[in-house]
């Protein structure tokens, strides 16, 4: 099993969720995040003064998938999340040693 962790633009969340649902993904977890990167933060102007917002709002997706789903999941996310503008975000993949479904105690792939 692998953990796919994706940092995306917030308003791409719906599109990504739909793309993953189409792949048959049944579960994922989302959290709010702020990103610092090449995008360099927006400038907001209040009363004529510029405020550099170092951290840009992002959404972070964590989903654990079966090893053989990883590639299609990564691709689906990349397709759905990219806008070709700087700051589209990243996808990271990490190895998962074990998984358990809390409700049933099932483990391994059954838990996903």
């Amino acid at each position, binding site marked *: 099993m692998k953990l796919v962790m994706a940092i995306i633009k917030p308003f791409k969340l719906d599109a990504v969720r739909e793309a993953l649902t189409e792949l048959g993904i049944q579960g994922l977890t989302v959290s709010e995040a702020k990103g610092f990167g090449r995008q360099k933060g927006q400038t907001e*102007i*209040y009363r004529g003064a510029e405020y550099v*917002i170092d951290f840009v709002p992002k959404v972070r997706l964590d989903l654990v998938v079966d090893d053989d789903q990883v590639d299609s999941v990564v691709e689906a996310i990349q397709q759905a999340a990219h806008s070709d503008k700087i700051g589209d975000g990243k996808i990271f993949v990490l190895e998962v040693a074990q998984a358990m479904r809390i409700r049933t105690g099932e483990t391994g792939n059954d838990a996903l």
Partner: protein
Amino acid sequence: MRQTTSRVTTLGTAILAAGVMGFAPDVAWAADAKLNGGNTAWILTATALVLFMTLPGLALFYGGLVQSKNVLSVFMHCFTIACLASVLWLFGVYSLAFDDGGATNAVIGGLGKAFLSGVSFETLSGDIPESLFFMFQMTFAIITPALIVGAYPERMRFSAVLWFSALWLIFVYAPVCHWVWGGGWLAEMGVFDFAGGLVVHATAGVSALVLVKMLGNRQGFPTHLHPPHSPGLTMAGAAMLWVGWFGFNGGSALAAGGSAAMAITVTHLSAATASLVWVFIEWKKFGKPSLVGIVTGTIAGLATITPASGFVGPIGGICIGLAGGFICYYAVGLVKEIWKLDDSLDVFAVHGVGGILGTLLVAVFAAEGLGGAGFGEDGTMGGQFVTQVIGVVATVAWSGVATLVICKVAGALGGGLRANDDEITEGLDLSYHGERDYNF
């Protein structure tokens, strides 16, 4: 109704003029004055409206503009200042401002009315109860030091805030209020300040600048600031200020009549105009008219019309709003970018500049030909303008010098003016008040 000077000649006009000048005629003298229910009803309401401006209006307005770790401290400043000013007002500041000062009446009132001594349920001030006049004026004494909160958020020690505000009320607000509204030398000269362009906005604005100079800027100013944490809160506060300002300017007529009505009319028109000015400047400059921008324009328009509100007509209201919007907009940049002074929430640029500007412009737009109330029987525009300039210079000079001294004293008494870096980094909410907002 031509209420243009403070030289009162008949009882009838005395009461009206009292409205215009915020000056309480001697009740003993006005022997057969009778309570007027309509006027009393309106000033009761106006008092509630002006209190509402500070609590919660100004608190929310300022609170939305700071970082979320300092929002409670801003609320705390506004709230505590309101309480402190109220008690001091009773203890003697009202008396210093409005009691007859005898030989030194030109510069300061006496202490005869400290603790409202001699004021009973029946005592009148004009045709309203004196306790009501006391309360209405108290709400002005509350909001004026609270305005200065905008100069020092996110970095001033809480105890220094209290010392500063108390001393400032006594040594800046009381005398200037006496000069202009309490029968002092500026009143004698016939200065026009309907609802506090000098007494409220110029004093607060100038003192804000001086205090910032003494206190230092925020960490990261001007390049690394955090944006307002909640423009929505700021909007809510601005809206409450706007509504409450009807009591501020309209109540300053001290009567429910044509003067109050026209005052709220021009007040509203100036606010609306200055708001639109700010929107269009931002739209043109940045492509994005902002909520923080429009409500700043509102406050600029309100501050600018304040001294003029009982003297000018609708066209005057629109023109003063235009001027207030434009000039305050550029003043914000001047203070922060050129002078590099972190008057954090623009007390000087909005209130100080607005109040001074309106105090000067009233000499133009009070002209009867422009729909204003005129300059009294032997007044002229030129003469009035000179008087207004004198009023501005005196108020600015006194506020500046006195504040300088007060800062030293408040710093000494309050353990320094400025919080230390750790307290600032942690946020004043936790470091001084042990609380945090927004525990979702």
